[in-house]
């Protein structure tokens, strides 16, 4: 599904290397988790994969089902089935959440040569998905993320994911800022979407989310690289012991992490 090879990324504006050779393959139907110290490059990886400006790929490649991701526009990547749930969802005053959701859904359908969804069908679809995430009608009417609580913003990300039905979902700290119940809702939302054709890359700091969304593979990222890959037990180990030993093992000082 997703294949990242030797990805090196620096900031466009500064001479600062952030990703220093990321190798990662996510197979169809699998859930991979990425953990790692603050500043290790997890969000950068998710942004580079989804096409945000400001980064320069100096080496390496990334493919989504054989499509060269790095050359494509962000909207093309989305239409190809890539989705990023943002660590910090963006507020867009003056644009209703419904308008936003419909515009996004129709844009993707159009890009894939499909018919636009009718207003009635759309309404039904949104209501159904929103209900399972306990997103009320008021949140749908309000401007995108404006005045939403932290947890509401994250649930809104999952709502978008549920509507757009991407095949490769990247979740960047979707669990941060969620209370216990919201975390369960979000996890249920994700689990409902799990199937053999859809993959997930879940970036998180906490084992707690992984109790709900059971990962197949866990990676540890530090200093712009994946330094360790293992099964769910790797997350448990990090939860218990922190990163110090792992970093030491790979000769990375905590400042660099």
């Amino acid at each position: 599904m997703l294949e990242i090879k030797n990805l090196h990324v620096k900031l466009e504006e500064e001479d600062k290397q952030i990703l220093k050779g990321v190798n990662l393959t996510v197979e169809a139907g699998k859930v991979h988790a990425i953990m790692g110290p603050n500043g290790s490059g997890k969000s950068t990886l998710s942004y580079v994969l989804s096409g945000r400006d400001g980064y320069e790929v100096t080496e390496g490649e990334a493919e989504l089902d054989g499509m060269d991701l790095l050359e494509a526009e962000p909207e093309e990547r989305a239409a190809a089935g890539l989705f990023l749930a943002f660590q910090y969802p963006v507020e867009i005053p003056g644009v209703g959440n419904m308008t936003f959701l419909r515009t996004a859904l129709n844009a993707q359908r159009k890009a894939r040569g499909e018919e636009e969804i009718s207003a009635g069908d759309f309404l039904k679809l949104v209501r159904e998905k929103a209900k399972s995430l306990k997103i009320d009608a008021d949140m749908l009417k309000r401007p995108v993320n404006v005045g939403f609580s932290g947890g509401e913003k994250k649930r809104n990300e999952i709502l978008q994911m549920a509507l757009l039905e991407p095949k490769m979902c990247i979740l960047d700290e979707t669990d941060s800022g969620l209370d216990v119940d919201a975390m369960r809702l979000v996890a249920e939302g994700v689990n409902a979407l799990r199937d053999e054709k859809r993959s997930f890359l879940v970036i998180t700091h906490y084992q707690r989310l992984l109790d709900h969304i059971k990962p197949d593979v866990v990676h540890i990222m530090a200093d712009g690289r994946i330094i360790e890959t293992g099964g769910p037990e790797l997350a448990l180990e990090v939860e218990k012991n922190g990163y110090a030993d792992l970093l030491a093992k790979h000769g990375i000082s905590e400042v660099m992490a």
Partner: protein
Amino acid sequence: MSAVEKMTPAEARLARVTLPEGFGPQRRAALERLTAMGLPGRRDEYWRWTNPTDFIAPEPVAAAPFVDDEPELFGEIDRLKIVFRDGVFDAEASDDLTMSGVEILRLAEAGDVNWASSLYGTLEANGQKPVVRPFAALNTASATDGVLIRVTGKAEKPVSLIYTHESEASDPILHHLVKLEEGAEITVLENGPAGARFNKLMEVDVAKGARFHHIRVQGRDHELRAVTGIFARVAEESLFKSFTLTSNGVLTRNECVIDIVGDDANAHVAGAALGDGKTGAFHHDDTIFITHDAERCESRQVFKKVLKNGAQGVFQGKILVKPGAQKTDGYQISQSLLLDEDSQFLAKPELEIYADDVQCSHGSTTGAIDETALFYLRSRGVPVEEATALLVLSFVADAIEEIEEERFRDAILTRLEGWLSRHRG
């Protein structure tokens, strides 16, 4: 050389002023005012950023009429239509001018109606201090037509003034009066390019507890030049609301002068202007002056400009709080969204306060499209041009929110979306 050739354009223009029939004393007084103040030049403080030359020239610059294929604005709204073609009243295209709770007359036919005589030119004359507004005086002196609307109750439906531009050299001058008696309410809609050059004035007298709503869509025509004025007097417990959407137009100057004279009144003016230099020059100027001369009144100015391809926007807005106007709440915001580096926004916010217990704030910003928001939309599959259009809508939303009724907001949004879809990239 003949005497005419030696005249400056301003002198030539003044020499050409003729006073149509009706409202003779008011017109003569306006001409005297005009002669005393003269037509403006670039050295005048409030004309530094907007070149008045084209408004002054004895003849208008020829302008090709704009052909549009968009559905009629406010087409689905039940309204009383009054149509002016190049400034000339079109009886055939207009509705019957009768409606319960409202008296409607035409300036050209009114003679000297009592209520109109005491209003015509009065608010304009008041509004000449402390800043002169020569084109408004010119208008009062020489307006050839307009509508005189007196509202005694709640108007059954909006009055919709529709302008069309058909002749390349039309130079209409229209003057409207709206007088709302105590507790009355009306919505006045205006739309369309009215000529190659258009000078339009509206004097609005809002009595105690009355409510006035004004929604205007101007521009459309790429080559239009327009200088307009709204002069309002707002009495106690009343509401004055005016919103303008401007798209296209070589040169537009919209002045709005509001005197809040009664306690507990509200006055809100808002505008959204969209300019694309690619389809013709675009220069848009909002010049606002709101005077608080009563207690516990609220005023709001919300102006947004979206500029691209060398378009220019100007905002000059003032709040004057007179001595004794305690508990005034004055708010002013002017913002521009520059879609490229060639466009320019100039703003001059002013506050002058002579009362101690007031709350006034003003702010002005110039910015580009928010890259983070743009990426967020694109990451959801929205193509960059559509995403930009959504962010433009997001930017102007506050101004559109100033329109009270949803049906008018929707009509404005449709127009806005139409403009955005024609001006992508």
